[in-house]
């Protein structure tokens, strides 16, 4: 997914907010010496950052765990808890050509995925451009932070198990060759997280099945692309064969306790060799149009769902039967848009509205209650409300009951009640 991380300098200048950045939870808070070192390192990195032109808002760098542990950068981080935003990737420590060739060798022809665009592979470590504003010193440098290492290790018990011995749990890439992508550190307690590239899943996953967490695409920026020789068609680093993708899904589904019939399947056909000859996928060492943001946008478009399927009365009944009245009503409204005289749909719509209205009234605590605005007029302007909600709010005087409000608002009662419930849930109003 595209990310909009704040610029790096801001992260370092201002104390970050949120539970993931709470200094009080820092396990190294009792180590002043290390903190001092970290602070000094931060200052040094800040100087470096000020000289860099950072244009990698959507770029991720891969780092192996050991490299990460040894890096000076790791010592500078003071995150007490791992966050999904902390995930980094890095290229394998080998020359580009060798890496690409190796990748292509290992990929059977039949399993190749046609590339709709050029995807930049992971560059060698020397060409790393820091992601999210973090300047990474060369690997192997001093001042590796053991505390950082231990923290990340503790946050990823699965990885530790893997390092200690063969894991009994299915892993997505255990049988693959040196894929440079390191699985992002999952949150503690989460069974498994895969760093699958969403761009490489060109089919829609059924909504009834839990969708696996996909990591962001790594699109590093290279300084040496001009001199790089034209590469052979290569598979991007995070690409899986269909069978591997299915096995990954199986792993997730097994973890989630899903039946095999409920699991999504990737069943698209690979391109023929003829097609690949005619239009061979090209690998570029630079982003498609020189801007990583554009790449992300292209990918986002490629997975955009098609037109919504037509709603049917069967679905309406199903939803109604399971008590999903709002869902049923939404479907009925769609049906009525096409067939305004649809008798069944009209009946269901009326019934859904009746039930929902009662539910909404119950949420409000009864129509005889008096609503009051909880936010100041200044704060009100910053809420995401529409003009109808604005009108309802304008009618609240602190004395009128919901019933009176429905009388004066001039809106259909169901719609007005629904909006009032939303306002109540958003804590814009309260009931007295």
């Amino acid at each position, binding site marked *: 997914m595209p990310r909009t991380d704040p610029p790096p300098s801001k992260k370092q200048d201002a104390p970050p907010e949120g539970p993931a950045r709470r200094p009080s939870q820092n396990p190294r808070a009792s180590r002043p010496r290390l903190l001092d070192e970290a602070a000094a390192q931060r200052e040094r990195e800040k100087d470096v950052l000020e000289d860099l032109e950072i244009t990698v808002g959507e770029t991720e760098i891969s780092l192996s765990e050991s490299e990460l542990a040894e890096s000076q950068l790791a010592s500078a981080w003071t995150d007490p808890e791992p966050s999904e935003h902390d995930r980094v990737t890095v290229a394998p420590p080998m020359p580009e050509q060798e890496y690409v060739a190796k990748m292509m060798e290992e990929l059977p022809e039949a399993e190749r995925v046609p590339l709709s665009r050029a995807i930049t592979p992971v560059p060698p470590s020397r060409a790393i451009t820091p992601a999210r504003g973090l300047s990474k010193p060369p690997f192997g440098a001093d001042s590796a932070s053991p505390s950082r290492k231990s923290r990340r290790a503790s946050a990823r018990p699965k990885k530790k198990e893997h390092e200690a011995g063969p894991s009994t749990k299915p892993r997505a890439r255990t049988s693959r060759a040196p894929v440079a992508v390191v699985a992002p550190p999952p949150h503690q307690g989460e069974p498994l997280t895969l760093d699958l590239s969403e761009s490489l899943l060109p089919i829609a996953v059924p909504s009834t099945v839990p969708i696996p967490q996909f990591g962001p695409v790594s699109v590093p920026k290279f300084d040496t692309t001009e001199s790089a020789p034209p590469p052979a068609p290569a598979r991007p680093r995070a690409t899986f064969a269909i069978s591997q993708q299915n096995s990954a899904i199986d792993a997730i589904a097994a973890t989630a306790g899903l039946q095999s019939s409920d699991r999504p399947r990737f069943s698209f056909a690979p391109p023929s060799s003829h097609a690949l000859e005619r239009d061979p996928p090209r690998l570029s060492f630079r982003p498609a149009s020189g801007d990583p943001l554009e790449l992300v946008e292209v990918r986002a478009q490629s997975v955009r769902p098609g037109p919504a399927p037509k709603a049917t009365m069967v679905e309406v009944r199903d939803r109604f039967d399971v008590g999903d009245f709002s869902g049923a009503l939404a479907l009925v409204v769609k049906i009525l848009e096409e067939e305004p005289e649809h008798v069944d749909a009209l009946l269901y719509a009326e019934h859904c509205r009746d039930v929902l209205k009662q539910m909404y009234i119950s949420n409000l605590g009864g129509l005889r209650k008096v609503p009051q605005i909880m936010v100041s*007029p200044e704060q009100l302007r910053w809420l995401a409300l529409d003009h109808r909600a604005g009108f309802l*709010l*304008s009618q609240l005087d602190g004395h*009128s009951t919901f019933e009176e409000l429905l*009388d004066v608002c001039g809106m259909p009662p169901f719609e007005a009640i629904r909006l009032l419930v939303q306002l109540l849930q958003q804590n814009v109003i309260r009931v007295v």
Partner: protein
Amino acid sequence: MERVIGIDLGTTNSCVAIVENDKPQVIPNRGGWATTPSMVALTEAGKRLVGHIAKRQAITNAENTVSAAKRLIGRKWASPQVKNGVLTSSYRIVEGPHGDLRIQLRDKQYSVPEISAMVLQEMKVIAEDYLRQPVSKAVVTVPAYFNDNQRQATKDAGQIAGLEVIRIINEPTAAALAYGFGKRLDQTIAVYDLGGGTFDISILEIGEGGIFKVIATAGDTFLGGEDFDSRIIDWLVTGFQAEHSIDLRQDRMALQRLRDGAEKAKCELSSVQETELNLPFIISSGQNEALHLQRKLTRETLEKLCGDLVDRTVDICRQTLKDAKISTKEIQEVVLVGGMTRMPKVQSAVGGFFGREPCKGVHPDEVVALGAAIQGAALVDEKKQMILLDVTPHALGIMTFGSNFEELVPQNTTVPTSRAKTFTTSRDNQTAVKIIVMQGESELAEQNDLLGEFILTGLRRAAKGQVEIEVTFAINADGIVSVSARDLETGQEQSIQVTASSGLTPEEIVKMMADAQDFTVERRSTEEFEGVKQEAEKLIVQIEQLLPDVEQAVASSDFGKDAIGKAKAVVERARAAIGKKDVSAVREQIEGLSRTQRMFKGVVAKAP
């Protein structure tokens, strides 16, 4: 002694007052406001809304909201005012069965007195809630220019509302009464009344001994505070359109908010120099976002926007004094009436014209109702020395040859009175004459109001001008006008008794009264039920909260379990009574619930 309330039945706002401990005071409505909008609406669900709540939905439900019904009361369908109303009103006006008019609200037609009765009924309820006793008598004010039909229609409205209107008095007279309350005055005053929808200027003579006489009155029935609001709305809409290219008038919700905001800003600018209109999320931009309206309005801008409206009132004052042949120097006091007179620009314009500072000793919104209350108290208390003479509001006369109007009883003639005049035939050998009785001040008969007509027959044949006929107008103390025509030679006589009519038959009025009574009973019972229901539900909640602790405390006792079972039964019975909406049953259960709640509290308190 029965209490008499005074009601100012205004075009845009109404107010009710009473004299308590010899001091007149306004009765606030449930919302705490001294005045109540004279608006009536019918919701989609058929619910009747009166007052502030009707005003708040006046634009979003414009077709079914009646405002300014006073402009139509007592008028005939064919009158120019009604024709104008048909064109300008947002609600539907249709022709009634007796040449009168009806107002269509959803699927039902209402007469204008019926609509006014709803407002009067609201004022009655406000007074009864305050006094905690039934109220059945009232003094109601009307503009000085109201004719007999309009006054009668107002009386009928009171009757439909369950009020006996013991006196109709002119608004400027009421204002003067309140102004002169407790004072010994002998002076000529001007009452400048700029209300929500109308403007009136009246010149009164207050004599020693409490004689109030309206010398002259004039006004504009389409000039008031709403016009000022409209100017602010225009200013806001124009600014918003320039900024966003969206016409806010096209959206009813936006327009309703603009009107509310404009009125609020206008009121604020009477006391501050600058105010901000802040209407967030006023309209959708069409791109999935809502736009805000935020503008600062200064008093200076408002005065520029509305300067011509203020000038119009001054022009009317000038013309009225000129017609009455009175100079401003003769005016010894200027009384301001109506909320709009709080506007500093209005006060300075009035002060400038009359050459004196207007009197600020009376509350402009309340002064008329206070005067009516004073009059009401005086009417039922003989000890209160006050002589308030009834006068004819308009001149009375007959139509003569050439469609001219011949005046017999001048305007402001104190009643009872009798006046006679002799006329002759207008054609040769004329054996009959038609006497057409009219009311008004115009020399052209067609511009005055028709009160009635009759034919005198049996005249002797003679050349025109030779037969003399004496026409006599007699008005008794009850305001009933009798007109007679007598052939002076033969003594042949015909007469007619003219009684003002609102356009409603007595049967219709009785039926409307019954309907209004039913509505009142239903409203009262609903309110009563809601009251006992809330009380019962509160007790049920308390009992249910105590129940687990009580169960624990009496777990080992059979007697305790039995008591809990009984308590649960009481709660169930109370719930059933609430479900049936049976007020008396709920009230019965409240006693049991109270006992149970007290018992439970005691058990919990004694529990270890």
